[in-house]
């Protein structure tokens, strides 16, 4: 059963197409990731799905409600962590939660109970009376996420919820996202961290220039990623690019005292580098394999799209 239905959604700002004719459905209980670099259209999509921005054309449904026609009814069933969201820094943690409870129409007893539950869950209970301005960035993000959960909503929109956080906070937030999902909350997560999407999401849509260029399960998308791995290598003595531009290497770049070799055959290239090192008695001081950047994935997917359209 689909909880979210997006049909041919478009958003233009002047001549600029921020979101260009996207359609997808999200099933109940799914964690759905929207991936893309800055400016890909993820936040604009979320803002249209939450009724903050009016689409230029197309429709979006959350539950039974058309978000344009019945925004208040649709929002009653969703919790939202907007990108760059903030709590009221001059209010205490608990006052921020109680405010959200009031906005979602919870009665006093329910909102106090829920606020205390969430403060405990997010490890903020002993700071509940402290003003949010005294919080660290990680605590800040936890209270923002807790605010979105006050309503016990069926759908949760999280726009870049872990960006810029310390490892401990990221782990806690990811664990809680999983926990709420296990309790049947449908989660729409935007991120530019492909590993986060891989860890959390059941399905992922990759956006670029306002379009969805791929929509699939993370493991399927990782197959594309694996084919564009690279190796960073540095030798004790400087080497020329042509000496290590083996047949198995697609492309080579020099970055400072290191070389980055792009290849589809990681194992073979590592063997060749070790062989080169032994043969020339030139010690390898750095050798690491890198996951490709999201940009590499986009280039590949876009190329695939172009090839598909010309054949």
């Amino acid at each position: 059963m689909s909880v979210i239905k997006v049909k041919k959604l478009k958003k233009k700002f002047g001549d600029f197409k921020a979101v260009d004719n996207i359609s997808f459905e999200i099933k109940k209980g799914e964690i759905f990731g929207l991936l893309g670099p800055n400016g890909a259209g993820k936040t604009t999509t979320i803002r249209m799905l939450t009724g903050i921005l009016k689409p230029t054309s197309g429709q979006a449904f959350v539950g039974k409600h058309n978000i344009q026609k019945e925004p208040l009814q649709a929002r009653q069933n969703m919790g939202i962590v907007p990108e760059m969201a903030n709590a009221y820094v001059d209010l205490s943690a608990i006052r921020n939660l109680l405010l959200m409870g009031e906005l979602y129409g919870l009665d006093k007893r329910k909102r106090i109970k829920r606020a205390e539950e969430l403060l405990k869950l997010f490890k903020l209970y002993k700071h509940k009376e402290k003003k949010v301005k005294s919080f660290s960035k990680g605590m800040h993000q936890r209270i923002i996420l807790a605010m979105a959960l006050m309503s016990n909503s069926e759908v949760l929109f999280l726009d870049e919820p872990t960006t810029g956080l310390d490892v401990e906070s990221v782990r806690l937030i990811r664990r809680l996202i999983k926990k709420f999902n296990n309790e049947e909350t449908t989660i729409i997560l935007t991120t530019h961290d492909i590993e986060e999407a891989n860890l959390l999401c059941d399905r992922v849509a990759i956006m670029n220039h306002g379009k969805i260029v791929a929509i699939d399960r993370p493991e399927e998308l990782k197959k594309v990623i694996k084919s564009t791995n690279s190796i960073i290598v540095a030798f004790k003595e400087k080497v020329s690019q042509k000496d290590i531009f083996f047949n198995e290497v697609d492309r080579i770049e020099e970055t400072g005292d290191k070389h980055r070799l792009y290849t589809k055959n990681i194992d073979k290239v590592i063997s060749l580098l070790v062989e080169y090192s032994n043969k020339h008695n030139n010690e390898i001081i750095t050798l690491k394999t890198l996951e490709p950047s999201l940009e590499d994935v986009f280039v590949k997917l876009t190329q695939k799209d172009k090839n598909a359209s010309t054949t």
Partner: protein
Amino acid sequence: MLQQLKKSLAITKKDLSIYYLRGPVIIQGLLIPAFLFISFSFKRDASIEFLFPGLLGMALFFAVSAVTPVIAPWETKMNTLERLVSSPIALWAILFGDILASVLFGLFITSFILISGIFLFGFQVITLPLIIGTLIGAFCFSSLGILMSAHPANQPSDIMLFSTLIKFPLIFISGVFVPISQMGSFKFLSFLSPLTYYIDLARGVVQGTSEFAPGFNLVILLLFTIALMFIAIKWHKRSLSKRF
């Protein structure tokens, strides 16, 4: 509707805690009209019966319109507005909550002026028309403040400058320091300011004479309130998406 009004009260409580119930804001609410009053009445040949309604009007006007113009740009800048508008509360209810907070603050500040009028000068200011007028006036001036913030600026200083450019000229055309009957060819300008009708109403109560009948002043104030509130909500709706 009732559910939305209840949510407005949550906004009011939030605004009072964050913006109003702070020492500097309360002191500023009392000091600005007091300084203006002293500056413009010093060594002037005007009776306290004439000047007091002007002080009362200024106190109410400045108190309710001091913070309302900056709430929307401030919350845009602090990234709290998006959270509010994405929760199940209508935009009009958010704005009404903002108005209600400033009305309560305005009534609190004005009560100091009214009490000083009673105890220092012996004015019989606790009359039904003035109480109703003060209440409507508070909603009216607050709506004007909300209207000023409809421009989608995210820097409070931009709106502060703009609101000062509107508020101070209104003081001078509303008969605070010069009776509107003595404003000559500029008299028609005073009719465009809602503050004129509030001060005239107060002058009728304190001095016993006024330009217009109390009922007329109340009706015009009410019409201004409805119009300003309606336009403010409409303009905020239009400008909301430009804030993000």
